[in-house]
């Protein structure tokens, strides 16, 4: 382990970013973790102050700072609302990388990130086995999946009400695709993302149905790897780099107009983090920056580019919408998913606090399930208060959390991806 002065030096590299926080405390109004605990160490201002103190060698307990830093959903709400424009996500991700460099990565995470995520084929095989035997080996699958993907915590521990792994993942139903542009004259690349692939293949199928309906050509290569956000948020930059590298290789030489995903987290990771946080070769970074410009959320693509009109179909139910942090806070996309729900002929009702985090936040859900559950429970209450039949969202990870929370309250409601509602109306 490096000595603490060296650690301080590494944190000094964040000094230019840290100094932008004027300690106004306005982030207390929006941070979901702080709303539960009421502790300054849990809110952005407190975390930034601690990092600043670490950098200036005023603190002796880096482990304590790391624990505070980890009590964060990385939801980006604070950054989106910070009057001073502090690049909070940038700081937190870099700080986690420094911490991981200093303390090392836990053996479990090493096994998951480096052993499994870096090897998509093995990942698929293991998850495939998991789905067949999940009744028998739940515990084993848990440990593996538990912290593997951003919120890929499906069959986990305790009193969670989880979605099980799909019987047949998307890559088994549709291994790959390469179709020319149809009547729309547009061709897109589809980045599937692991939660859609392994837990909600029906979301992937809905996307493919919609694209086909509108005459959009699809490039969906086999062997897609995880987007890398779980590794990055655990400070494992080397795994992140190799995942970005693998994915970029798959997409860089193909011809397409847009890269679409049905996962808010994937979209924001590809757009915001691939080119920005990738530390490897400059060619890949250049290619990632090219992909960044083309990347879009699926409802943004349908509404802004295809300008879809009401289908005349009637989805026949009342629907409310939860804004995934990764769409609202990092990309500012809030109108298009709602419009798509209306376009599908649903009776749309806005819920209270639609834009607050559902409390999942990746491995946060695993490490801090109690807070995660409190935050999610409030979300579920808001959904119930909207008195609708269906809760919709644009992020499969949020779907997992919301399903867990609604199910624990015995709500008997269904949780759908926006694209499923639209696909059903066609």
């Amino acid at each position, binding site marked *: 382990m490096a000595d603490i002065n060296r650690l301080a030096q590494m944190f000094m590299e964040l000094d230019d970013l840290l100094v932008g926080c004027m300690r106004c405390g306005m982030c*207390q109004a929006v941070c979901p973790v702080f709303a539960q605990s009421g502790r300054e160490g849990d809110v952005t201002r407190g975390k930034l102050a601690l990092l600043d103190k670490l950098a200036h060698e005023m603190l002796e307990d880096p482990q304590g700072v790391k624990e505070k830093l980890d009590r964060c959903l990385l939801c980006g709400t604070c950054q989106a609302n910070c009057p001073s424009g502090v690049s909070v996500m940038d700081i937190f991700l870099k700080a986690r990388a420094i911490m991981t460099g200093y303390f090392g990565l836990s053996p479990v995470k090493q096994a998951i990130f480096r052993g499994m995520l870096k090897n998509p084929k093995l990942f698929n095989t293991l998850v495939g086995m998991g789905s067949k035997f999940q009744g028998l080996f739940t515990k084993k699958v848990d440990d593996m999946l538990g912290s593997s993907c951003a919120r890929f915590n499906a069959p986990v521990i305790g009193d969670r009400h989880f979605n099980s792994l799909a019987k047949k993942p998307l890559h088994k139903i549709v291994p790959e695709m390469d179709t020319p542009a149809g009547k729309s004259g547009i061709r897109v690349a589809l980045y599937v993302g692991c939660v859609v692939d392994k837990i909600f293949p029906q979301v992937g199928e809905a996307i493919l149905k919609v694209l086909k309906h509108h005459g959009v050509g699809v490039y969906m290569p086999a062997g897609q790897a995880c987007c890398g956000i779980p590794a990055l948020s655990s400070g494992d930059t080397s795994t992140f780099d190799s995942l970005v590298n693998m994915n970029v290789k798959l997409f860089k030489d193909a011809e397409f107009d847009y890269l679409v995903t049905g996962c808010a987290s994937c979209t924001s990771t590809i757009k915001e983090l691939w080119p920005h946080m990738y530390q490897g070769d400059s060619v890949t970074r250049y290619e990632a920056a090219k992909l960044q410009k083309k990347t879009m959320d699926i409802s943004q693509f349908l509404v802004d580019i295809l300008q879809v009109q009401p289908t005349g179909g009637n989805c026949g139910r009342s629907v409310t919408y939860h804004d995934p942090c990764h769409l609202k806070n990092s990309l500012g996309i809030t109108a298009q998913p709602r419009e798509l729900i209306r376009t599908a002929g649903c009776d749309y009702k806005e819920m209270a606090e639609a834009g607050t985090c559902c409390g999942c936040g990746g491995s946060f859900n695993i490490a801090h399930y109690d807070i995660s559950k409190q935050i999610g429970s409030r979300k579920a209450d808001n959904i119930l208060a909207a008195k609708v039949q269906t809760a919709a969202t644009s992020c499969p990870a949020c779907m997992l959390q919301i399903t867990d929370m609604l199910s624990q309250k015995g709500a008997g409601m269904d949780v759908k991806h926006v694209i499923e509602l639209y696909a059903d109306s066609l």
Partner: protein
Amino acid sequence: MSKDAIIKEFEAAIGAENVMTDETDRHAYSYDAAVLDSVVPALVVRPTTSEALGKCVKLCNDNGVPLTVRGAGTNLSGGTIPHPGGCVVLTNGLNRILEINEEDMYAVVEPGVVTAKFAAEVASRGLFYPPDPGSQTVSTLGGNVAENAGGLRGLKYGVTKDYVMGVDFWDVNGELVKSGSRTVKCVTGYNLAGLMVASEGTLGVFDKIILKLIPPAQAAKSMMAIFPSMKAASETVAAIIANKIVPATLEMMDNFTINTVENFRGAGLPTDAAALLLIEVDGHPAQVEDEAVLVEKICKENGATEIKVAKDAAERDAVWQARRDALPALAKLKPTCVLEDATVPRSKIPAMIAALEEISKKLDLTIGTFGHAGDGNLHPTILTDKRDKAEWERVEKGIDMIFDRALALGGTLSGEHGIGLAKSKYMEIETSRATLEYAHRMKSVLDPKGILNPGKIIGFKK
């Protein structure tokens, strides 16, 4: 008693889960929104009942531990920077609205209730709580009372003190002192509630606060007037008041702030304007119509080049968004942002503006000025980087000069941000030696061990 023993006592009294002693937790309560050096406390406690709050105060006093109460820690004067080795008492575990009485129009709250949440709850019952500090989404009512916080509506509706009907507080011995009442009129004994307002945690720890509520205005109209000079704008302010119109809000922005806000939001503000006034009149619909016309006329007579009256709620929002954007927009320009609080009689605003321009030139500092022109409360905002030692020295000099000029114009050190640590050194200049002596004598009796937020407002006795 040893430090460990004291901590054990706290744990026994209020529960171990409410006592924080880890290095990181203590460091997280070593600062507030003021640009001052942090000081690390020995422990942090978070009582969740009124009784526990009283116990904390008593324990601190019994053991001679300096105590600093902390609401949201948004004060801009160092009021919650702890004393070395002291104890920080958090109030955000005491956040219940105990009563909203619609018939008699008052409310009883615990000190940790967040201002905006309270105002929203009151509004949902068809009533109005006017004080709206810029920090209201996070600031606490206890912090508002302890700082006598003001806001955009100060001109017509007054500030926090105008709504405090009573405060129950713990004295240093952990005894509950009651003051004020639920009646509009009350002259029972000393006005202790009044003494608690702006006391910044140096005289007692608030337990419950009784706040006055009023009926909301039925109608409101907002407008934005554009001026070719700060002088014309500030003369307009005086003229509006002289015409016996008291707008609900009357805010000013200088050219630098206008441009910064425009770069930030791109909402179409006139970037070549030397000054903007943002004005809202409210009240009975007929009166609002009349006053709006008159205000427009006065603005024109005083040289306004253009006046935009908001036609609907969306346009009204746009007017206030521009004002709300002032601080965030300025804050983004430079790492450090020193928000000052110089306040002068309204008629002296032109002179104060001239003084600020002169100071900024002389010391080569970037200063954006906006603020509550209607009540003479300006917020010159100095933009800098604290790490630049040479510039920081000029900033400190600039702050001294700003207060010097404000006082010379018959103004005051603080319109609403409080004195805390930041301005205690100027107190004697505005008041007198005798005033400080009196305050120290009072404090020495009420707080013989000097544990209540030592050093704030009146400094240490020399």
